[in-house]
């Protein structure tokens, strides 16, 4: 029995967590950011970013398998305590900034699209409050919640296609390469840290039942995330057409406004529901990761008490940004900066591991 109560998550839960990390990107401002550079071929960018990020991911997977230890343990054992703490701080900064900027962005979307009369701080506190509540119940529980809701979430998201089919025209994705293959490749690489969480997820490795569960869980979730984003970006282009699609701030929310089901005209309320649930879970994962990295940096044994201060700090810091344009600019900066760190980091770790391993072999 009770084999399930060891506090570890299995592949299904992990897949669901990763799905809630990545699939939600098709609903936020990520498509908007990508359309700016990718033009009508922006849907290729997630695939390129995925391909670029996959290499460091595989390198890290190899190191983790070799040592059978999580990212945090690896960093501390390979880089030493001081540099290790610094790296933890860096990771914390990345994840916390992402949490802060994205959650503010989401709140702005709620504010603009649905609750224009409600003050932003009010919505913001509620959203982060719910995320805090979920995160506070532990990773195992985030996983279970995600797993229960994920089939429903994917179903509701994809069924939207059938509601907007009449406006659909697939020819609009041509010319297939958009602004040119070189631009796509370059931008795809620069923006590859839209999938940077895949690297940071290695920190959760000690909480996963076994190595295979981790590999399968992250890869499945990730592939579903990439496919969904690319697929929905094709839909956005085919429906709104280029260049109009560039100027639509929230394509998914616009799409839900256009969707019709028989005589029921506006389905956005249903999608508001889906999106609300998904963002609460999405940010609970971020909160959890942020608290985890901070506790490792400070070498604390328990990190649950950190969740509340981080949630509070996130709301306070998130409110600084005056509007969504600043938020978007911040997000782009964050993506570009963290790409360098997250893509290179596994290689550095691998190099040091080789170096140390070589030294050990020589000594032995």
């Amino acid at each position, binding site marked *: *029995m*009770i*084999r*399930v*109560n060891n506090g570890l*998550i*299995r592949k*299904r*839960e992990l897949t669901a967590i990763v799905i809630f990390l990545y699939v939600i990107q098709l609903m936020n401002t990520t498509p908007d950011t990508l359309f700016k550079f990718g033009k009508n071929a922006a849907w290729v960018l997630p695939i390129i970013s995925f391909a670029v990020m996959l290499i460091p991911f595989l390198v890290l997977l190899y190191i983790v398998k070799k040592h059978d230890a999580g990212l945090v343990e690896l960093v501390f054992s390979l880089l030493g305590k001081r540099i290790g703490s610094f790296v933890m701080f860096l990771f914390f900064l990345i994840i916390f900034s992402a949490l802060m900027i994205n959650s503010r962005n989401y709140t702005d979307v*709620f504010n603009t699209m*649905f*609750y224009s009369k*409600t003050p932003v701080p009010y*919505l913001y506190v*509620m*959203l982060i*409050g*719910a995320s805090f*509540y*979920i995160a506070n*119940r*532990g990773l*195992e*529980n*985030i*996983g*279970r*919640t995600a*797993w*229960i*809701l994920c089939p429903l979430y994917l179903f509701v998201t994809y069924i939207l296609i059938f509601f907007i089919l009449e406006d659909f025209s697939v020819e609009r994705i041509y010319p297939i390469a958009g602004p040119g293959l070189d631009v796509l490749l370059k931008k795809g690489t620069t923006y590859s840290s839209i999938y940077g969480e895949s690297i940071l997820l290695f920190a959760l490795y000690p909480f996963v039942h076994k190595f295979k569960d981790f590999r399968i869980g992250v890869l499945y979730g990730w592939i579903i995330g990439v496919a969904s984003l690319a697929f929905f970006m094709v839909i956005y282009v085919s429906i709104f057409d280029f260049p109009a699609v560039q100027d639509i701030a929230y394509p998914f929310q616009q799409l839900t406004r256009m969707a019709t089901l028989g*005589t*029921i*005209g*506006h*389905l*956005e*309320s*249903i999608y*508001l*529901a*889906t999106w*609300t*649930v998904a963002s*609460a*879970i999405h940010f*609970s994962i971020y909160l959890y990761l942020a608290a985890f990295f901070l506790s490792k940096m400070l070498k604390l044994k328990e990190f649950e008490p950190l969740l509340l201060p981080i949630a509070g700090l996130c709301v306070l810091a998130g409110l600084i940004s005056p509007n969504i344009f600043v938020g978007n600019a911040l997000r782009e900066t964050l993506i570009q900066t963290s790409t360098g760190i997250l893509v290179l980091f596994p290689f550095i770790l691998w190099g040091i591991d080789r170096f140390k391993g070589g030294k050990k072999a020589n000594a032995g």
Partner: protein
Amino acid sequence: MTKEPSSSRNQTKNDSLFTDDFQHNITLIYEAFSYPTNQSLKTRQFSALQGTMSGILFFLEGTVEETTVETHVMKPLYELSDKPEDGKVVDMLANSVLLTTAIREIVRLQDAVHDLLNGNCLILLENEKIAISANTASFEKRVVSEPTVENVVRGPKEAFIESMAVNQSLLRRQVKDSRLICENMTVGDVFSNEVSIMYIKGIADDKLIKEVKQKVEGIQTDVIQNLSILEQFIESRTYSLVPSTLMTERPDRATSFLLGGHILLLMNNSPYALIVPITFWSLFHTAEDQYLRWANVNFIRIISILAIFIAIFTPSIYLAASTFHVEMLPPDLLFAIAATREIVPIPVLWEIILLEFTFEILREAGIRIPSVIGPTIGIVGALILGQAAVQANLVSPIIVIVVAITGLSSFVIQDLSLNFMIRILRFLFIFIANFMGFFGIFLAVACTIAYMSSLKSFNVPFFSPLAPYFHSQRGVVFRKPVWKQALVPFFSNSRYKKKVSNPKVGSRDD
């Protein structure tokens, strides 16, 4: 019953031994039962063996079967002809004279009192310091009758009654297996009662059995009247809306839980069995689940799921849609709602709360009302409140529909604890909807699901085997055909059979 500090001291005073002095022994019993003030204690002097052996027989009125006392205790005593050669009268009586099913030799007054209270009769002999207690128990009980709450269309039509012995017999008839274990424990420090813990050895998890026993042992209170009170002592979360135990009045349902590796608790005075541990699915599945054909049962399950959602969310979604998200309603409906709302003077929240509370009051009144005037409830509820409230412009007709469908749906959920949970949650969601619309409702939904999936009942996660997922043969949301269900205890690793299959004998009709 309130606690009487003196009574526990009385109990310790009872702990004295019988002596050779016949009169002293009799006085001890008299004092213990406050005879002659207490008229329940019945005595019968007798002398046998041509007057060489005399004694006295005690029993409590209403606890024994008097014909058994006459034929199995008194008659053999009088027919006794020889005194034993070794002079051990008590041994002889116990071993070869008295005809009852259980005989016990007693030296302590406390044991004597206990046995008398449990329906035994007690024989004291002259010049003996050992008393004999013979099992003649027969308490009044009603006959096994049809279930009143968990009704089924197809399936056994008997329910547990207030007698633990009868309930055990009902279970034994269904599980004819030597592995069905029944352990008895006592609860209550002052007025003790027996609790019977039943499980199937090898199927129920040993750790779990130990935990349940520890919980029952650890209860420190003066009295536990019945299972409903015991439930509140051993449940995992007192202040939570989500139940962690289940009560059933159906022996067949209890049996199916036993076979699934759950543990059953029985007590006297409780016409139901308490089942631990439970999951959400055991609350959601009905008694009839396994009796109906595959398609039918899954149809019912879809209806039940819908009913749960309707019962929780309809009022709050109506409230949110009509105040925050009017664009989601088709224009015609919106105008209809607006037209009926126009003449109602109170806000939609209070409209809903008013009618919801009325419905809950009706429901509670329906339970408490004497059955003679029961039908009035229907007339008052439907006619006066429904019709008249609308005509008086107190509520709009659409609210009546919303509340009616909500109320009706809540009746689909059979389990009382789950039913209460859903009814209380509904009010929570109404207030949230009034506050924040869909955004609030669905943040609360995410939190509720997170809360529920983190719960455990005796270490079994509330949503298992769905989340955390593991393979379950019986199906949780939808049921598999019965011949595809290997009987796998849902949280145990043991199983009876590796594989089951549909018997393919003779011609097939497809």
